[in-house]
């Protein structure tokens, strides 16, 4: 083996997704522990570990491998702005055309120059499971909202006589709106707190459903807690609009008649 000298120590760096090495890690992994200069690795003939795709047989030995049409390197370029990126793409296209004319390969230039987001998209770094789960969750939320509208309607309209009395005693429609929307908000908070317990259980169970590298990303942090409560209150209040409107339409006279 070779002796290497450590020249620097960086903070733990594992951006999720690992945008710089999606093909070999799937995008969600622990990150590298050791970095060595590329040219030094080539000098030392460090064998490439990772995806290797050869369109033709490589020549003999290391030199043959380097000069072959085997793809084992990912190339990144930092460009200052969009115009520079355009120019760079043109430069690459020109180079590819040149190589084609020189007989290196037979196809027309087929250059892709993607920024990080496009690259992640092209590599399909978000697993299909996550996207389908998101859609199903949103559908779930909508169904629960519809359910809540119905149940709140039942709950509020059952108190029609009480509303009638309040209105007869001088409460305006706005007062009724306020009363019931606040009531809905309270239900939302209570539901949200219960939901937090279930969210905690869910975060524990997420490891059962998703692979470890993705499951690691789901953590119960303050942002998630706040989000749960806010969504709960907001959803309940939105669901309460129609039932509250119905409650506010209650005619005092009808409720006060003894029949």
């Amino acid at each position, binding site marked *: 083996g070779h002796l290497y000298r450590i020249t620097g120590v960086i903070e733990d760096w594992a951006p999720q997704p690992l945008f710089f090495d999606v093909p070999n890690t799937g995008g969600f992994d622990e990150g590298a522990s050791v970095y060595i200069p590329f040219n030094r690795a080539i000098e030392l003939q460090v064998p490439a570990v990772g995806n290797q795709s050869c369109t033709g047989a490589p020549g003999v030995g290391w030199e043959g491998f380097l000069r072959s049409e085997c793809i084992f390197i990912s190339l990144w370029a930092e460009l200052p702005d969009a115009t520079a990126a355009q120019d760079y793409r043109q430069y690459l296209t020109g180079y590819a055309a040149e190589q084609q004319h020189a007989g290196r390969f037979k196809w027309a230039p087929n250059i892709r120059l993607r920024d990080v987001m496009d690259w992640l998209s092209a590599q399909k770094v978000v697993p299909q499971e996550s996207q389908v789960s998101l859609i*199903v969750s949103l559908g*779930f939320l909508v*169904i629960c909202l519809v359910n809540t509208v119905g149940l709140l309607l039942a709950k509020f309209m059952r108190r029609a006589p009480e509303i009638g009395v309040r209105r007869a005693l001088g409460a305006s429609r706005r007062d009724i709106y306020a009363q019931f929307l606040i009531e809905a908000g309270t239900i939302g908070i209570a539901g949200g707190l219960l939901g937090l317990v279930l969210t905690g259980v869910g975060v524990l169970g997420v490891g059962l459903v998703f692979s470890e590298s993705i499951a690691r990303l789901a953590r119960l942090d303050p942002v998630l807690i706040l989000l749960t409560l806010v969504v709960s209150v907001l959803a309940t209040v939105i669901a309460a609009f129609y039932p509250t409107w119905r409650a506010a339409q209650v005619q005092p006279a009808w409720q006060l008649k003894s029949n």
Partner: protein
Amino acid sequence: MQIRPILAALRRHKAGTILIALQIALTLAIVCNALFIVHERLDRVNRGTGIDESNLVAVQNRYVGSPDTFIPVVKTDVQAIRSMADVEDAYATNSIPLRQGGWSRSLQTNPDATKDGVGSSLYLGDEHTLKTLGLNLIAGRNFVPGEVAVSRRNDSNAPAQIIVTKALADKLYPKGDALGKPVYFSQGQASTIIGIVAKLTTPWVDSEFPENSVIMPALGDYSSQMFVVRTRPGREDAVFKNIARVLYQADRMRVIPEKSGVRTFVMVRSKAYETDRGMAILMSVVCAVLLAITAAGIVGLSSFWVGQRRKQIGTRRALGATRGDILSYFMTENFLIALGGVVVGTVLALALSQWMVTHFEMKRLSFTYVTIGVVVLLGLGQAAVFAPALRASRVSPIEATRSA
């Protein structure tokens, strides 16, 4: 049955009707697609590999150091494993099915071909491979020891003899006469098909050519080796626990990862399909909870309605309706609402399925699932409304005369 009066009465309670129908529609859409996803995933998980998956242990081994060649240690290790009491047979390779990493090649049937070749995975093996994996040789013969060569990094020698799967043989030589015929790797030298096995899948769970595999007789001259071990029946556990120790005793200059270095094939399969299994679990739980929520919603809303209509029910009873009439009135009413809901729900389910087909390359929802979903939801609605309807039927006729 008096359907028209029921519909007329419902027109006065539009809100409640729409809410129940909408909930049933949305639940149908989600439940149908979720169950379909569960079915798809379970189908994937149950796909066979073509190998005998019981009594099979795989060891992922990496040698430390840089000798000129790894072949002598590989041979020693394989010998050591084969001489373990609980081991029937073993060999060294680069990969096995469901390992999720391996080699692939593009194959041609003539050396000057310009069109795209046939994709296939490539496994290293020797004359013990067929027995260790429990493969079914349907034509030709196994390798002989003299044919086992050495494979080096960036090698340009194609194997002289290969064994292929039936699927690959049929793809390369559709007339069915693949045995004895040549196959050309990109190096341009001929490899003769000396044997055909029934089935051997690729290392990847998702592959463009899942049944195309080639076994080439060679030992890999690499630091990374996979030892595949067939244990004596019932001795899988013993081998699983002891094999790392046996290898380290023979030679300490290696690393076998602690957690995943030694795995039974059951564990390999489990890891390969963990996302599919997880998805199936998630969708099943979602279905169950959704159905429970919809049922609860219907119970709640129906109870409320019954409460609102006590006077009307009392009047009907006073005028001669029996308890049974009242019960069947409410059951029919719920059925009609649910019917409206499932009609809309079917459209939504198919629309959602179509959207998922275009965005996620999934298969289209089959009508069986829609039918099952419709039956389940209609049944669920009826079951949910039964208790409130029963309570309605118990309303006494005296309610007709009460003033509040």
